[in-house]
């Protein structure tokens, strides 16, 4: 199966093409086909995973060149190693669940089949991204997932906020992509190849200077920052929640946003060589994590809380990977790589579950605002329980999946005190805001009776995927238990095998932190021992800052978007006024010049011309007499001219006459001509009379 792994991304693509060109009008068939395709991909992914485990994670690579310029080859190929196999499973599993879930969620949407087409296209792009064997190809799919994300966020494009969010997502991630291009150009261009393994070996051989490598890696990481919504490009992800909830679950929680993490993990052999770049990665990661978690504390939109939670968790993973790179560069062992990828997987499952659960809730109560929910537990049992399982998981409670992966992250950070502090702070905040969400949504009394009455459990197409993901949210972490001999760590490890060991001390600390977070939330929102309002009042400035998300949007709007737009307008004015004005000015000058010339022409040149014209016209009015219009007269004139010319010629040729003689002859000729004119004048006089007499005679 590994040889045919290209089928895994290709099947959803077939689904996309079929829906667009053939099945568009048959909604059910379209959805069914799409789901069938992604399920096949899922099955294949499992087979690939098993085969990869069988190979002990040895990479399998196959590719062909699409074209090459000079020595630079552009290739399309697949690389199956443990990381890829794991990603394939994650993506196809979540995608399958989400697609099935969408059957119910999008049931009455007028663009139902289009939704599935987009989802299929996304699955194709995402699977292609993870299966790629070179940076060129990853960049292609990187952009394609961006496109599908754009299309899906703006799926309900009649809403201005949705289309705005789509645009924002696309452009913000594109800013990151810009960095990624530069990074690729620096690294791949420097090495003369795009292929992962060739680049890795080339860098290991020291082709690139350390500065170049560090710069390139930081730029490359910019791509990950954009895609994984890291600080400072995180602003698009919360807005992206305008998209349909399954989309948020699939793209903006489980898969596309982890592409950045995947990229860092994929490029880890490079980061291992650059401590600076790795440190930048780690710092960005933890900054994001803290910032997003703190914003998540106060948000009231259920999906936005989850979005900030996603950002925060992604920051976790990035930090772990960065710390791993740093430690390795420093020659120390670190579980960071394993921790980051492991958390990536578990997070994908429980976050997808959270989103789908949130979607189920929204589906039931038709609002996003958690302040208007409450007490939904009895009405939506499956949703509520799976949601709470996922919350436990994300909070890091034993033995849920999140516990194992988060524990490894804490272990990674444990050697760096500052990171350790913030990591635990984030863990605390995460537990708090997740359980704030749970308590406000499912516990207590309904705060909006009307919505509560309306609420109901979702259809089976929606609840079954929840249940399935719920199982994964519990069990997915068990593959990474530190006591396993050949667990996740040994599978995914890229360098020398890392033997995870159970550090009960750290486990204890993180559990305490998580439980205290949950406890605080319980006190505030379930027991209501501590009034949230009082807390808000006490920390008013901070609360306001957090509620407004540190004013990032406003700041960007103020320092980037408006200036760029204004600059554009200014440039346009510049274009129309100055550049074009210059051209028109030149034209104007030419016009002025021609005006001057015209004056000159009119009075000086025209004067001369008119003078000449006057002379000519008076002469010609004399000569006009010659033009009698009578053919005979012309004949006579010709005859006379022949005679004169003949005489002149004769004299010159035979007699060699001098000019005086000639002039006499010419005078004679002139006399002849004057005779002619005279006769003409007479004729002119008589002509009228003659015709008069003629006609008179005729009448007789």
């Amino acid at each position: 199966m590994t040889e045919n792994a290209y089928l895994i991304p290709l099947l959803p693509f077939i689904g996309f093409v079929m829906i667009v060109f053939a099945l568009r009008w048959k909604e059910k068939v379209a959805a069914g086909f799409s789901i069938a395709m992604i399920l096949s991909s899922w099955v294949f992914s499992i087979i690939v995973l098993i085969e990869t485990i069988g190979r002990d994670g040895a990479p399998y690579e196959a590719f062909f060149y699409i074209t090459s310029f000079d020595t630079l080859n552009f290739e399309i190929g697949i690389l199956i190693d443990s990381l890829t196999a794991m990603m394939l499973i994650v993506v196809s599993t979540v995608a399958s669940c989400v697609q099935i879930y969408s059957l119910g969620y999008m049931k009455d949407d007028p663009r139902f089949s289009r939704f599935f087409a987009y989802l299929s296209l996304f699955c194709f792009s995402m699977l292609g991204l993870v299966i790629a064997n070179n940076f060129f190809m990853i960049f292609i799919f990187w952009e394609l997932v961006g496109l599908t994300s754009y299309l899906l966020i703006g799926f309900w494009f009649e809403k201005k906020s949705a289309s705005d969010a789509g645009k924002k997502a696309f452009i913000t991630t594109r800013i990151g992509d810009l960095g990624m291009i530069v990074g690729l150009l620096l690294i791949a261009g420097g090495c003369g190849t795009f292929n992962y393994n060739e680049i890795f070996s080339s860098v290991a051989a020291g082709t690139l200077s350390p500065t170049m490598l560090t710069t390139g890696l930081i730029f490359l990481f910019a791509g990950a920052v954009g895609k994984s919504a890291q600080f400072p490009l995180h602003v698009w992800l919360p807005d992206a929640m305008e998209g349909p909830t399954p989309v948020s679950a699939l793209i903006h929680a489980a898969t596309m946003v982890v592409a950045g993490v995947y990229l860092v993990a994929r490029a880890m052999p490079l980061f291992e060589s650059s401590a600076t770049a790795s440190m930048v990665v780690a710092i960005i990661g933890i900054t994001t994590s803290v910032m997003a978690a703190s914003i998540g504390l106060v948000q009231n939109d259920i999906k936005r809380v989850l979005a900030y939670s996603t950002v925060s968790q992604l920051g976790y993973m990035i930090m772990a990977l960065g710390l791993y790179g740093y430690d390795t560069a420093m020659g120390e062992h670190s579980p960071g790589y394993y921790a980051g990828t492991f958390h990536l997987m578990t997070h994908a499952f429980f976050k997808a579950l959270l989103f789908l659960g949130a979607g189920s809730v929204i589906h039931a109560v038709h609002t996003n605002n958690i302040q208007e929910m409450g007490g939904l537990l009895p009405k939506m049992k499956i949703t509520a329980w799976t949601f709470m399982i996922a919350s436990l998981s994300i909070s890091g409670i034993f033995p849920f999946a999140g516990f194992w992966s988060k524990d490894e992250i804490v272990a990674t950070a444990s050697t760096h005190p500052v990171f350790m502090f913030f990591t635990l702070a984030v863990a605390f905040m995460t537990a708090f805001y997740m359980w704030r969400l749970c308590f406000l949504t499912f516990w207590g009394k309904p705060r909006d009776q009307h919505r509560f009455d309306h609420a109901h459990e979702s259809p089976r197409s929606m609840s079954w995927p929840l249940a399935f993901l719920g199982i994964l949210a519990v069990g997915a972490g068990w593959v990474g238990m530190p006591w396993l001999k050949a667990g996740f760590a040994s599978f995914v490890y890229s360098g020398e095998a890392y033997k995870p060991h159970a550090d009960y001390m750290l486990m204890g600390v993180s559990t305490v932190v998580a439980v205290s977070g949950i406890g605080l939330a319980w006190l505030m929102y379930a027991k209501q021992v501590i009034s949230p309002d009082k807390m808000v009042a006490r920390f008013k400035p901070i609360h306001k800052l957090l509620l407004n998300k540190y004013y990032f949007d406003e700041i960007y709007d103020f320092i980037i978007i408006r200036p760029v737009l204004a600059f554009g307008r200014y440039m346009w004015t510049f274009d129309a006024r100055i550049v074009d004005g210059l051209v028109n000015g030149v034209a104007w000058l030419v016009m002025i010049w021609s005006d001057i010339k015209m004056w000159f022409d009119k009075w000086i040149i025209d004067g001369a011309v008119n003078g000449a014209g006057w002379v000519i016209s008076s002469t010609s009015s004399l000569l006009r007499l010659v033009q009698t219009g009578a053919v005979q007269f012309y004949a006579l004139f010709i005859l006379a001219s022949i005679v004169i010319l003949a005489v002149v010629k004769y004299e010159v040729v035979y007699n060699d006459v001098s000019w005086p003689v000639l002039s006499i002859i010419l005078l004679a000729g002139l006399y002849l001509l004057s005779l002619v004119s005279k006769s003409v004048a007479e004729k002119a006089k008589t002509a009228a009379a003659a015709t008069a007499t003629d006609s008179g005679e005729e009448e007789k």
Partner: protein
Amino acid sequence: MNEAANPGIVFWVLSAIILVTGFMVVSLKNIFHCAIALVLCLSGVAGIFVLLGAEFLAGAQVLIYVGAVAILMIFGVMLTSNLAGKKIIATTSNAMVAFFATVLFGGGTIVTIFMTDVWRYSSESLPIDNVMFIGKLLMTEFMLPFEVVSVLLLAAMIGAIVLARDEES
């Protein structure tokens, strides 16, 4: 050679007739008389042709010019002009100038003829059977011009009919 130097008395008589009648053609006021003079003049030219050994041409001259063209002219005169017998100013007002110019032209030409004293006379004589020779030539060497000229005549004929036709008929 001798003949070239002295054309003989017949020539002079014919020349006189031609010139006098020719002058009458251009100067008489009655156009009908002019036509009669033209007939005489052309007959004289036919005589000159005989003198020059061009018997066939002389015949053709009589037939075509005297017989056809002149008669055509007379018909033309009679058809177009009801003034056939009337006297009007025959010449245009250019007459004096024209006369002067023509005299100069003709004089110049004659002077040129006489001044050219080296005519390359041929020693041979005309073929005896003049007419047959012309016939042969027409059918061989001048075949194309002959045909062309036939077409021209035909065209002229048709053209004349078309032009002269009354619109009503």
